[in-house]
């Protein structure tokens, strides 16, 4: 299979390694590069400067996107800044390529319907890079909720805090897409995994409210903190999901807590531990993935994408899923700006 990687930043390079790891010699990989930054980034986000990634990975590099598409890749990985995702994806889809789009899908809703239409008409696989859905503990939590293990949900908290300058220590955070409005940045979009997980676990919310802003001394023109309230419903019972996101925390924190009538679930991502309290049974079960390693999520994600292309099946995170999460993110941004609840259709 032929893969074109559009954008060889850290996540683009990680996908090169994941594709190689999945298909070994059966993958023919090329990259389309516009910025031509010369550094190689490891799994641990350590950068080696002065090395061209295309040479390091032994892949072909195109300087023109049209030239790259005429190489006729089977699939295109869209790993450039968020604001360029949709235009890139539409061109790739028009060329008949399956598409993997890094999260978030986009920074606005323009051209989403055009992308959806092309993907549908050409029966392409389109997947969004919300790799947290492949985390074994989150998969476990999803299964518990589907089994109604803790009864009707009454509330949930999802919390994710990062230190933006530490996320990509090899680059000036002020230049990163995460810190720039023009590139589709801001904490709501960049740390949208929690919103995606909430949508995955609890379904799309009926309404969204958000507070936040640029609260830190970080030099950026986008929000660095957001407190989002999602009004959800399951089996006719309404409940609220609180999501906190920020770019200010040292050390990073990420956890999920869910309360149900018959129990509760708590999981701390960085401690890699949590528990499920099943009150009817009087049991406490441990949630942990002893063999968990971060790359495993990306490996499974890429493997799922390749399997879907081979079998023409729906990926775990489809274009529709990405659109649903994006709509929540954009509603949160609107609510943050206008102070009102945003009702979703």
């Amino acid at each position, binding site marked *: 299979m032929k893969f074109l990687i559009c954008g060889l930043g850290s996540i683009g390079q990680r996908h090169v390694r994941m594709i190689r790891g999945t298909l070994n010699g059966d993958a023919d990989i090329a990259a389309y590069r516009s910025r031509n930054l010369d550094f190689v980034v490891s799994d641990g986000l350590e950068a080696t400067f002065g090395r061209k990634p295309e040479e390091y990975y032994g892949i072909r590099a195109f300087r023109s996107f049209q030239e790259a598409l005429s190489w006729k890749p089977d699939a295109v990985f869209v790993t450039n800044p968020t604001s360029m995702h949709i235009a890139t994806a539409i061109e790739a889809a028009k060329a008949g390529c399956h598409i993997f789009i890094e999260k978030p899908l986009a920074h606005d809703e323009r051209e989403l319907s055009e992308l959806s239409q092309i993907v549908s008409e050409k029966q392409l696989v389109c997947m969004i890079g919300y790799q947290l859905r492949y985390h074994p503990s989150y998969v476990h939590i999803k299964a518990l909720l589907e089994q109604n293990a803790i009864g*009707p949900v*009454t*509330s949930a*908290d999802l*919390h994710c*805090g990062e230190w933006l300058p530490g996320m990509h220590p090899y680059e000036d955070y002020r230049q990163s897409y995460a810190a720039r409005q023009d590139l589709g940045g801001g904490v709501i979009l960049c740390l949208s995994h929690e919103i995606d997980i909430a949508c995955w676990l609890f379904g799309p919310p009926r*309404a969204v*409210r958000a*507070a*936040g802003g640029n*609260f*830190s*001394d970080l030099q950026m023109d986008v929000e660095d*903190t957001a*407190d989002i*309230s999602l*009004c959800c419903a399951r089996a006719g*019972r*309404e*409940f*609220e999901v*609180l999501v*906190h996101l*920020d770019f*200010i*925390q*040292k*050390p990073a*924190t990420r956890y999920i*807590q869910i*309360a149900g*009538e*018959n*129990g*509760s679930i708590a999981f701390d991502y960085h401690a890699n531990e949590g528990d499920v*309290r099943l*009150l009817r049974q009087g049991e406490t079960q441990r949630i942990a993935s002893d063999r968990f390693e971060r790359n495993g999520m990306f490996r499974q994600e890429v493997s799922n994408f390749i399997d879907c292309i081979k079998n023409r099946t729906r990926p775990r995170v489809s274009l529709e899923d990405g659109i649903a999460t994006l709509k929540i993110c954009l509603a949160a941004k609107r609510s943050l700006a206008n*102070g*009102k*609840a945003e009702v979703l259709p």
Partner: protein
Amino acid sequence: MRISKVLFVGLGGAGQRQLRIFRQILPEETVLSAYRHTRSTPLLRRDFTVDDWKTVEAAYRLRIFDSLESAFADGPDLTVVSTPTACHREPMMMAVASGSGVFVEKPWAENLEGFATFRDQVRARHLPFQISFQRRFHPLIGRARQAVRTGAIGRPVAATFSVYSDVRMWHPYEDWRSLYAVRRELGGGVLLTEIHELDLAHWFFGLPDALFCSGGNRGSERLAVEDTAQLTLLYAGFSVQITVCFMHRETSRRFHIVGTDGDIRWDEASNRLVVTGSDGRSGEHADPAFPHDDMFVAQAQRFLKGWTAADTLEALTAAAGSLAIVDAARRSLRSGGVEAVDHSVMFDRAPAAQRVSP
């Protein structure tokens, strides 16, 4: 404060706890009396089980009054009000009018109606006032507040407070459906009943500018009051998320406060406080055997020994601030939008709810 006579108005579970603790602290010669409206709660032991062998009156040698008028005509120095929330106002106002100090169970009342008059009379008559926000006397919660206010974790970025409990299990000696907490006419609902978390946010960070709130009757029991509420308090530069729920079978209470240079976590079940700096190094304090009663004892001792006018001012601020948050939360529940928190209930000068400096 010289106290020779203490009047207890309302002797349900909360009232009897205060009675037991006040009896322990006050000198033997202090005369304790009571006005009981329903007299429905039997004598309770410290663990809230029923002691059938005695009456409350006999166990504590209480003088009993048949009316509030006769009770206040006796001239109590201090009145302890532990009636259902909606019944706080009348005895408090009568107490102040008679020149008695007031110790009231939280919340001050079901809303702030009459608060300004009460506040002004308390101050004009130099009367002692305290509201039972006993969690302010929890050693580890106090330590967490100190860490926030001294900048140990930098500037606040976010905070999450949550409390879950099961109102059906609160008072095993009575039918939970008759409990004030689930009855609107008695000032029930989780916002008022679990107001401690709102008070802690107020105590830690000051009064928020605005908030939004959602919630309602989310549990399986059909109640006339909200059993779950989730609030986002909006401050200049950060927000605080609070979940209060009293229809959950597992009791838990915790908070997580994030600052620019670290975070603070506390959990009641383990009674463990962890303060982590930005370098990842943690300091831990734990006291899993901490007796729940100790907060109430510390609170009563503080009130009965060495209470000052500044303490009364802070208690009035606590009473008003927490209810101002509830008032805005109720408006938000109706409007679905962000609602301003009314700061006019606070004092014109020297607001006790100081903001944490950025």
